[in-house]
């Protein structure tokens, strides 16, 4: 029984992480899947969201902290919203400068900003607590859930051990529910926005910018909208991560975990398909976790093992694309679904 509880708790933790990635993949799908915007700095917007939310909703600096700013302790929904807004503002700034230029500039700018943000997180301790990381970020409704469980268990001392340990982890179920609700809401929002004349213009821009301009579309304006919307969603993912992990440090926003894997997820699941983005997140995160077990059996140093995992995931991606070149789900033939029925 204890083993089963252990597996269940692992699955829970796994699903929450994959769910956060699903949100990131949805954001990238707006940018790359629909509009063809090459954002290789996903980690940057993710980090902006995470730190914004932590500063808005987290506790004020403690005696041992280096930071002197933020920690206003506002309710989670405000931190969550702020994460989206600040990520959107950063995207607006970058997009405003680069989106009119050739497409390579956006790619360079996004990777550049992600790197700059990483360095800020590491070095600007007054804001981010630097390498010590931000601690004690509150999880929404953690106290009520936890005290409820404690009271419940105190009243029933005769419960079997496995049930007690299951109930002690009850908060994760609550958080998974919250996350699922957010993913569902975002899915419907994004699906509604994209499967429309607006999304049709985005796809046209992805296909041929010059021809889209000849059809009277303000290419730069549409690209900017898609870039900002996608980045805002990535910011929300950051908030969802921060309030579950409760601790933020710079390693979580390295390009490998913050950008590379998200790309693999979207491309494997099916760029241009929102269901594909979510499916890809769960599938690839599962495979990624699998490679951890696999390399664990090999006599390798950590650095080598993690390099091998990247290779393995790359091979898997190639395998998926060989069988299904457009990803597992691929995109729908008709963009807009508003003219049918």
């Amino acid at each position: 029984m204890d083993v089963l509880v252990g597996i269940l708790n692992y699955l829970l933790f796994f699903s929450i992480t994959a769910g956060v990635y699903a949100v990131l993949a949805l954001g990238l799908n707006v940018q790359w899947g629909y509009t063809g915007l090459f954002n290789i700095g996903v980690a940057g917007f993710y980090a902006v969201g995470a730190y914004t939310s932590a500063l808005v909703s987290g506790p004020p600096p403690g005696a041992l902290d280096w930071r002197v700013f933020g920690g206003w302790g506002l309710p989670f929904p405000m931190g969550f919203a702020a994460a989206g807004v600040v990520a959107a503002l950063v995207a607006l700034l970058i997009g405003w400068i680069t989106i009119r230029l050739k497409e390579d500039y956006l790619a360079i700018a996004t990777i550049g900003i992600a790197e700059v943000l990483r360095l800020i997180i590491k070095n600007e301790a007054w804001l981010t607590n630097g390498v010590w990381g931000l601690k004690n970020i509150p999880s929404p409704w953690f106290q009520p859930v936890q005290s409820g469980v404690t009271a419940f268990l105190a009243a029933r001392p005769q419960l079997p051990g496995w049930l007690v340990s299951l109930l002690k982890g009850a908060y994760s179920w609550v958080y998974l529910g919250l996350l699922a609700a957010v993913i569902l809401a975002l899915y419907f929002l994004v699906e509604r926005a994209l499967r429309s004349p607006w999304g049709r213009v985005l796809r046209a821009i992805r296909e041929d910018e010059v021809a889209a301009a000849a059809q009277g579309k303000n290419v730069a304006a549409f690209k900017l909208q898609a870039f900002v919307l996608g980045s805002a969603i990535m910011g929300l993912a950051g908030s969802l991560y921060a309030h579950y992990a409760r601790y933020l440090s710079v390693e979580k926003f390295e390009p490998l975990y913050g950008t590379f894997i998200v790309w693999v997820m979207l491309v494997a699941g099916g760029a241009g398909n929102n269901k594909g983005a979510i499916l890809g997140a769960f599938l690839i995160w599962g495979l990624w976790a699998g490679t951890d077990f696999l390399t664990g059996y090999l006599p390798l140093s950590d650095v080598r093992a993690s390099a091998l995992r990247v290779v393995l995931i790359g091979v898997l991606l190639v395998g998926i694309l060989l069988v299904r070149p457009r990803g597992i789900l691929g995109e729908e033939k008709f963009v807009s679904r508003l003219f049918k029925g």
Partner: protein
Amino acid sequence: MLAIEGVSKRFGGLWAVRDCSLTVEQGTITGLIGPNGAGKTTLFHIITGFYRPDRGRITFRGEDVTGQSPFRLFHKGLYRTFQIPRAFPEMTVLENLMLVPGNQCGELLWNPIFCPRRVRKEERLLLRRAQEVLEFVGLAPLAGALAGTLSGGQKKLLELARALMAQPKLVLLDEPGAGVNPTLMNKLAARIRQLAQGFGVTVFLIEHDMDLVMNLCDPVIVMSEGRVLTQGAPAQVRTDPRVIEAYLGGQYAVA
């Protein structure tokens, strides 16, 4: 309707268009002919804002539009098709057309989210119009096909169909007949004439098919080496010795 004054465009050492002046009068089907490399397509690119001229001025409906961006010119009623078709390959033929009309309420991000009913209504109208246009150019059976799967000639027809969706005041057609099956040519000519006379669209078209030009266009403008060589009624242009000379050695005989 359209006036071009002293327009020049240079690529490296080559003047693709050189001190070119011409006008297109409202209600006409004006032809633009000339040997390969005469600068016709380049001139179209300049008129529609895809290239900025090195010199000269373009006036459209009395307004100086030199150097304006293509999407702005679209909304002023100026539409162009491409010599090498530029359909959106991963979109259906139907949506290639539904995309075109300007100022769709569904193109504003919040409308599909907050007022889907309004967008839906607009989409149904667009659908009907697109279906009519597809009938008109004979592509109706391919409505649901991805545009990338069309043949070369079908893609040219799709270009024309998009022009019909745009409902411009002036349309620039870059070789609408190239690659189109000869038996379809007569139909194509009839379609273009209908566009001009039935829908009141002024047409300015480049074409190498002399039959099409001679029985459709009046006046005909002849370009050679980036300059306007002459202009006049088709019968007059056809017999102009300078025109014959410009084409000599080229692959097109002026019949």
